[in-house]
């Protein structure tokens, strides 16, 4: 049974072209996602996200995660699959799909992210429903915290 896709969005005070670069260029990806990234803006291109052992994550375990770009339509849509085993072709059965959707607005860019196909992760349907519920209850509190965080750190601060 398929889980609901996860969908989140944020309004960014910058043009879509700038947001696009941050999402797709390895030098920027390494500041918001993995420690290193090998990514191309081309549908069908394979790449990797690398978390270094003892890297930014502070985790002893390193991790190299293969990705496959599914759509790259600058500066509007960037989609990739991840989670498939190394050396295999990603499909709906073995990977999750991440979609970034950028929409220009008067005040900047609305960035939406949708991740689907994560249902394979936990097997117990009851547990899954419980987690989803827990999460939804926690969501409003989290959103409030996040807004405080954004408000205090959005201005010109870098990682």
């Amino acid at each position, binding site marked *: 049974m398929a889980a609901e896709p*996860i969908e*989140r*969005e*944020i309004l*960014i*005070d*910058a*043009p879509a072209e*700038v*947001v696009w*670069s*941050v*999402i797709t260029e390895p030098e*920027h990806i390494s*500041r*918001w*996602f993995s*420690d290193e990234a090998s990514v191309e803006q081309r549908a069908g291109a394979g790449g990797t996200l690398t*978390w270094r052992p003892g*890297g*930014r*994550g*502070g*985790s002893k*375990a390193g*991790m190299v*995660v293969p990705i496959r770009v599914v759509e790259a339509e600058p500066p509007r849509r960037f989609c990739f699959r*991840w*989670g*498939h*085993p190394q050396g295999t072709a990603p499909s709906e*059965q*073995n*990977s*999750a799909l991440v979609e970034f959707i950028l929409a220009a607005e008067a005040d900047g*860019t609305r*960035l939406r*992210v949708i*991740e689907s196909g*994560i249902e*394979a*992760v*936990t*097997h117990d349907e009851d*547990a899954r429903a419980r*987690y989803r519920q827990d*999460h939804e209850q*926690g969501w409003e509190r*989290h*959103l409030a915290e*996040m807004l405080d*965080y*954004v408000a205090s*750190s*959005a*201005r*010109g*601060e*870098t*990682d």
Partner: protein
Amino acid sequence: MAVAAAEDDALWAAFADPTRRRVLEALLEQGEATTTTLAEELPITRQAVAKHLVVLNRVGLVAGQRRGREVRYAVQPERLDDAADSMAQVAAQWDRRLTRIKRIAESLQVDRQVDS
């Protein structure tokens, strides 16, 4: 914040591989298992099972204990709870990543405006 997110990312990545999840599932069913007993049940080689166990062990999802000549593995239930929680937090992780993307894009934009 970044630390927690990246640790979750590592756990999530360990979980994201379907074959690895199957190894974990088989291990849950068997309770305690060796690389050999797991390979008997799964459509992969002993070597492949061993590789997946290394990854699962690294993120703490399984632990191995040497008994004589063999190592017996078991799922670490606490860590599995963490993993389940962390799956529930996938959305929260995306929020954190989006927040970082916002900060980076906005500071790039400020730089651009200063330059022009």
